């Protein structure tokens, strides 16, 4: 069925969805240049450099520790080095790794490498990525051994995981949607692997099927809902605002901080305006689990929270919560602030944060840390306040939640 659909579309349309340039296939030399360029764009979209780089003088040479709930993995070297990188792999080896999550020797890869998303990529796109990676400087770099908890330190267990949670399969465009929508869907579900952070996982680290992009908790952060939910997601953002956020790290509603600021820096700020707009169009059409927003918790007796806010927060975020768009994110009507999971809100108050910095928005304004200044009770009070003032609505934050996150953060600090 899928194949029939694909072949019924013209080459032009296919290229529009999967990315590409002129209508006619190019001549051999131009095709290899075009292929490398297309591969680079996909590598940017996939943010491969972030996980596959530990030493910034050795890009893509691997060795970065990836912390998972099951232990720490170290990313492999994907430069063309023959001994320590993937230089000796065939194109089929590479495709199989991306599409099926299996290494050339048959060993299963761990889904910290997001092959459940990369499986959606078309074969020629995967080869384009390979072509781009082949142009990189080969760097000799061996990674440390993985430190996973038993039994996951045995790759054979991934077979069972894959059986339960993974089906390889290339992206199938939806004929009822526009080319732009399909391009956005391809990017989000495929190379962008947004669900890797933004979709909640079950206890074995697999996506919860019915909650795609509803928000996910990882590494002591909460990656917010990015469906079209008005209250919790990007429902109130225009497609242009979403694209602006991805390109510059900021828009009138919010600023990309922490892990997302790295994504902006290394990945989305490098993508084309057309691709970013396509992602935006798609996200605006993703229906989150329809939840009616909670009622706002009455703040008239939360003197502590209100007064801390006036004293310690309003100098940047303003007494009416409107902040300074593009610099100090507004808290009023802020979806991130109102997430049902308050981890990000608490963490940002405790440790501070900095919005993404790009050439178009270079201001490096940061929020300072409050962990030394406020007790657990005080953090909980002001967090509850900002989540419910100005017609915001979100569950109360408790002192215990703050205490517990403080403990986890301390444990995580080397």
């Amino acid at each position, binding site marked *: 069925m899928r194949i029939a659909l694909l072949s019924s579309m013209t080459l032009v349309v296919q290229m529009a969805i999967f990315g590409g340039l002129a209508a006619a296939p190019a001549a051999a030399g131009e095709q290899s240049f075009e292929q490398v360029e297309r591969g680079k764009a996909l590598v940017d979209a996939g943010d491969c450099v972030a996980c596959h780089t530990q030493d910034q003088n050795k890009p893509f040479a691997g060795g970065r520790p990836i912390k998972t709930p099951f232990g720490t993995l170290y990313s492999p070297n994907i430069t063309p080095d023959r001994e320590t990188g993937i230089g000796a792999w065939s194109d089929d080896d590479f495709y199989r790794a991306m599409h099926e999550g299996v290494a050339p020797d048959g060993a299963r890869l761990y889904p910290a490498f997001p092959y459940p998303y990369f499986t959606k990529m078309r074969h020629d796109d995967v080869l384009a990525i390979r072509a781009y990676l082949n142009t990189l400087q080969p760097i000799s770099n061996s990674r440390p051994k993985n430190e996973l908890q038993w039994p996951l330190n045995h790759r054979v267990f991934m077979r069972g995981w894959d059986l339960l949670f993974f089906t390889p399969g290339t992206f199938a465009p939806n004929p009822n949607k526009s080319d732009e929508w399909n391009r956005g869907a391809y990017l989000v579900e495929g190379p962008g692997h947004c669900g890797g952070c933004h979709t909640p996982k079950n206890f074995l680290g697999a996506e919860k099927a019915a909650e795609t992009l509803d928000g996910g908790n990882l590494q002591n952060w909460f990656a917010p809902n990015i469906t079209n939910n008005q209250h919790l997601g990007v429902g109130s953002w225009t497609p242009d605002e979403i694209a602006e956020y991805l390109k510059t790290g900021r828009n009138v509603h919010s600023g990309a901080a922490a892990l997302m600021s790295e994504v902006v820096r290394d990945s989305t700020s490098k993508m084309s305006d057309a691709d970013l707009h396509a992602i935006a169009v798609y996200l605006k059409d993703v229906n989150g689990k329809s939840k009616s927003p909670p009622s706002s918790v009455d703040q008239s007796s939360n003197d502590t929270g209100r007064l801390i806010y006036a004293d310690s927060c309003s*100098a940047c975020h303003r007494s009416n919560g409107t902040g300074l768009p593009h610099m100090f994110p507004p808290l009023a009507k802020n979806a991130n602030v109102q997430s049902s999971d308050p981890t990000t809100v608490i963490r940002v108050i405790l440790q501070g944060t900095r919005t993404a910095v790009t050439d178009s*928005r270079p201001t490096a304004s940061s929020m300072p840390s409050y962990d030394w200044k406020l007790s657990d009770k005080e953090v909980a009070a002001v967090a509850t306040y900002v989540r419910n003032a100005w017609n915001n609505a979100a569950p109360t934050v408790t002192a215990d939640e703050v205490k517990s996150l403080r403990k986890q953060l301390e444990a995580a600090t080397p």
Partner: protein
Amino acid sequence: MARKLPSVDVVLVGFGWTAAMLGQELTDAGLKVLALERGTWRDTSTDFAVTFAQDELRYYYRRALFQEPAQETLTFRNSANETALPMRELGSFLPASGVGGAGIHWNGQYWRFLPSDFVARTHNIERYGAGAFPDTMSIQDWGVTYDDLEPYYDKFERLCGISGKAGNIKGAIQTGGNPFEGARSRDYPNPPMEMTYGPTLFAEAARQIGYKPFACASANMSRAYTNPLGVTLGQCSYCGFCEKYGCGNYSKASPQTTILPVLMRKPNFELRTGSEVIRINQDKNNKRATGVTYVTEQGEEFEQPAEIVIMCAFILHNAHLLLTSGIGTPYDPQTGQGAIGKNYAYQIVSSVDVFFDDKIINPFVGAGALGMAIDEFNGDNFDHTGLGFIGGGYIALWNTNGRPIETHPVPKGTPKWGGKFKKAVAENYLKTATIATHGSVMSHRANHLDLDPTYRDIHGRPLMRMTFDYTDNEHKMSDYLTDRATDVAKAMKAREFHAKKREGHYSIVPYQTTHNTGGAIMGSDPKSSALNRYLQSWDLHNLFVMGASAFPQNPGYNPTGTIGALTYWAADAIRNQYLKSPGPLVQA
């Protein structure tokens, strides 16, 4: 033995305002630029965040952002009759240490000098005759005019988002601005700050007695602003912890809030902190600087070669470094020969406290450059005939703070402690405002900088010695300003006021201003100045010296605006003239 490092195109000594501006300009020109800063990295959320910047003890009284005399200081005496002794604690002026320099803790008070200020010598002689001032007054023309600098003042204003109202646009006097200012091409990039009560009362009274008050131009943002580099500043929140403190919410212009976010990202720029330049190295035969020698906090010494050396380290360090590096001829006050260390000047300030019974001033709602001023008595804006002095200053009611350790005014005659003192403090704190005068200091032959014969720094170099006192000219002028300020105080119809004239010798003990000037002055003649009109050393053509060290004397306005303009002016000369044809830009 100093380890020699790979050469760079430009080395900047120090990393405050002028270095940040030049770093930005010269990296744009494609040069590889290295900045060496003695102090530490500083930024808002780590060093003076909204969560702890409001700390009087730490930042002002324990000097957290300032230079430590233990690391660097100078010796001081009023005149050559005395032995200079070390300034063991900071007092009169507050130099900084660390990235951003005093650009972090300045008030943000922004002014342009008057056109006549740049030709003070010629102008005063023309107007008042050959006897306008005594021979011992060594004032000089600058070698550059207000008109030369006008576009660069404008550029600095746009960098900083200066909030104010122009008084003279292309010759047309504007209501609400300073009618005495030099003609400017356009208005400020931001409107003036909204005034609190104290400055408003001052302006009403000043108007009543026939003066033309105007909002002081301010580097505290009256509204959010994005500058031409794409860097955004927030709106000032009137926190009252501005001057002597870092701004916690990005609303005071500083290198951190206007330039560094862009400059630090450039691939051809590097900053090394904890790296103190202790010598400018030179090749005397070819009249060139070859680079600098610097010492790290760990005590390692490095030689850093460079094609161009630019000194950006605050006037006191610039003069000291020139002297200890043996560049140029040290000034001899006896003969008047030599230019390094010559024409050191400062500022003379006084104030009038105004005590109300019926008006609540709320001094703690304040900002460093929040105020209303009158300029009738600055420069040569008024006829000095028969007054016995030249120069002048502005008179302003600033509402910068109500920080209680620093600001607890009491009426004249109140004891300094005890029950009556306590009551007076409680009664007057909320209801008092202070008018300030900010006067010029002319250069005098005896006021100079040289090297101390006795005291040494941690590197074993002689400390710089400052010989400085006010003369009759300054005292007469300042008393005159204080009297004029008193006139306005009277018209404010308060319960009482207390005029505090500046009396006696200059003392380094009480804080006054950090407006030290001179020591490496600019001019048209290499015999009487250290730098040419482009701030290029007459002695080494690839050495440029930024900052107020270039001022031949100090007019009656805060210096930062003019320092900014001169820096952009020099940057232009380096980019468009020097790079194309390295060598002296002015033939002596």
